[in-house]
C-alpha cells in the first residue's frame, strides 16, 4: 500500500525503516540479515533486477550500524541522522544497480526529485518506527544468565 504513497517524490519505505531500526535496537548484524531477506522479498515483486533491493538494504543497514559508533548527541538526533545517511545510501545503490544493468538513469533528476526527498521523509519517520522496534526488541530479547 505504501508503495503507492508519494509526497513530492518522496516515498515512505516502511520495510527499510523497520530493518534500519532493528539494526539500531538489535545490532547491525541482525539488521543486515533481515535487510537482505526483506530486500530479496521485495525484489521478487519488483520489475527491476533480482538482488538490487537486497543489496541496497544491506548497505543501508550497514551504514546505519556504522553511524551508531559515532557520537551524535541525543538518541533521536542519532536515529534521524543515521537514517538520513542510510536511506541516501540505499537509493544510491539502487540507482547504481539500475545504471549497471542498463536502465536509463537521470542522476540529477533522480537525486533531487526522489533520493533527497525520500531520505528526508524517512529520516523524519524513523523515530516513530524506532519506538515500536525497541518494544519488540525487549519482548523478544533472550535473557542470558551467568553463574
Amino acid at each position: 500500500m505504501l508503495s503507492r504513497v508519494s509526497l513530492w517524490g518522496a516515498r515512505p519505505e516502511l520495510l527499510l525503516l523497520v530493518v534500519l531500526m532493528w539494526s539500531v535496537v538489535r545490532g547491525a548484524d541482525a539488521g543486515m540479515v533481515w535487510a537482505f531477506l526483506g530486500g530479496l522479498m521485495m525484489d521478487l515483486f519488483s520489475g527491476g533486477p533480482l538482488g538490487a533491493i537486497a543489496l541496497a538494504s544491506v548497505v543501508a543497514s550497514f551504514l546505519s550500524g556504522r553511524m551508531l559508533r559515532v557520537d551524535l548527541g541525543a538518541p533521536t538526533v542519532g536515529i534521524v541522522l543515521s537514517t538520513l545517511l542510510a536511506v541516501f545510501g540505499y537509493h544510491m545503490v539502487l540507482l547504481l544497480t539500475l545504471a549497471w544493468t542498463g536502465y536509463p538513469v537521470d542522476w540529477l533528476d533522480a537525486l533531487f526529485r526522489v533520493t533527497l526527498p525520500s531520505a528526508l521523509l524517512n529520516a523524519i519517520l524513523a523515530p516513530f518506527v524506532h519506538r515500536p522496534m525497541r518494544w519488540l526488541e525487549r519482548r523478544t530479547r533472550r535473557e542470558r544468565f551467568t553463574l
Partner: protein
Amino acid sequence: MRESPTRSWLPLALSVFSLLLIVFSEAGFLSPFESVFHYLFDPLQRFLSTFVVSLGDLSSTVRDVRELQARVEELQRQVDALEAENIQLREIKAEVETLRAQLNFVDEFPILAYFGADVVDRGACTTYPCGEVVGGEPNPYLRYVTINVGARHGVKVGMPVVSGGPRLVGRIAEVSPRTAKVQLITDHASSVAAFLQNARVTGLVVGQPDGSLLMQYIPQDQQIDVGDVVLTSGLGGTLPRGLIIGQVAEVVQMDYASSQAALLRPALDFSRLEQVLVITAYAQAAPESEGQGLSLP
C-alpha cells in the same frame, strides 16, 4: 541504542551474494526460481491486496461521496456538451462519406485503424483477459505494476495494457503463470511512438523520473497547442494505433535544438489503477499502401 559485536565478514558476504543474484538474474538463470516463487506467493499477495483495498475503501467512502457528487455534476455538463458535439460529428461524418464516395475511396483504407483497444469494460473479459492491479513497485525508480493475469490466461511479453477506456497503461514486461508485471508508460525506460491528434505530427513519448510524460522529437517548425490529445501512432507495430496517452500540458522549446518537446498530462492517474485490460490481438495501423491485418504482439 545497543551496540553488539559485529561479524566483519557478514556485510561483505551478503553484498557479494546480492551482486551474484543480480548477475544471474540479468543472465536469466533465476527465471525458474522466480516463477516458482510467484506461483507460491501470488495467492497471498492477492489476498493482502484485497484486504488493503477493502481497508482503503472503508476510509475513503465519506470523502468519495463528496467527490462523486461534484464529479457527477461535472460529467453531466460534459455529457451535454458531448451530445451537442456528437450531433455535429454525425453531420460531418455524412459529409465525409459523400466526399469519400466522390473521390473513389475504398473501404480497405480506413481512417480509423484500431480495434479492441476501445473495449475496456468488465464485459470484455470474455474476449480479452481483464487484470486487476494487485501490487505496486517497491523500487522507487521504476514504474511497474503487477496484475493478476498471466501466462495461463494467454498473456505474453509486449502485449499492450489499457484502462479507463482506450487509455494506454503500458506493456507487459514479465509474465509468470498467474501474474504479469506491466511496465507503465511513465517508467523512465518506456518509450512509445505517438502523434498529436490535431497537429498530426509524430514524436516519441518517454517516461520521466518523476512519473510524468515527455513527448520528444517533434519537428521544430510544427505548431503545438496546449490541450492537444496525444495518441499512439502504431509505428513499429508494437502497439495499436489511437490509444490515448495524454494531453499537452506545456510546450518545451529550445532554440538550439532541432526538435521541440511537450510535457504531457497523462490520461490516467497511475497511482489509482485498479482495473486494466490486456490486449492480446489488435488490427495493425494500416499504412497508406497496405491493408489491415490482425497483429499478435
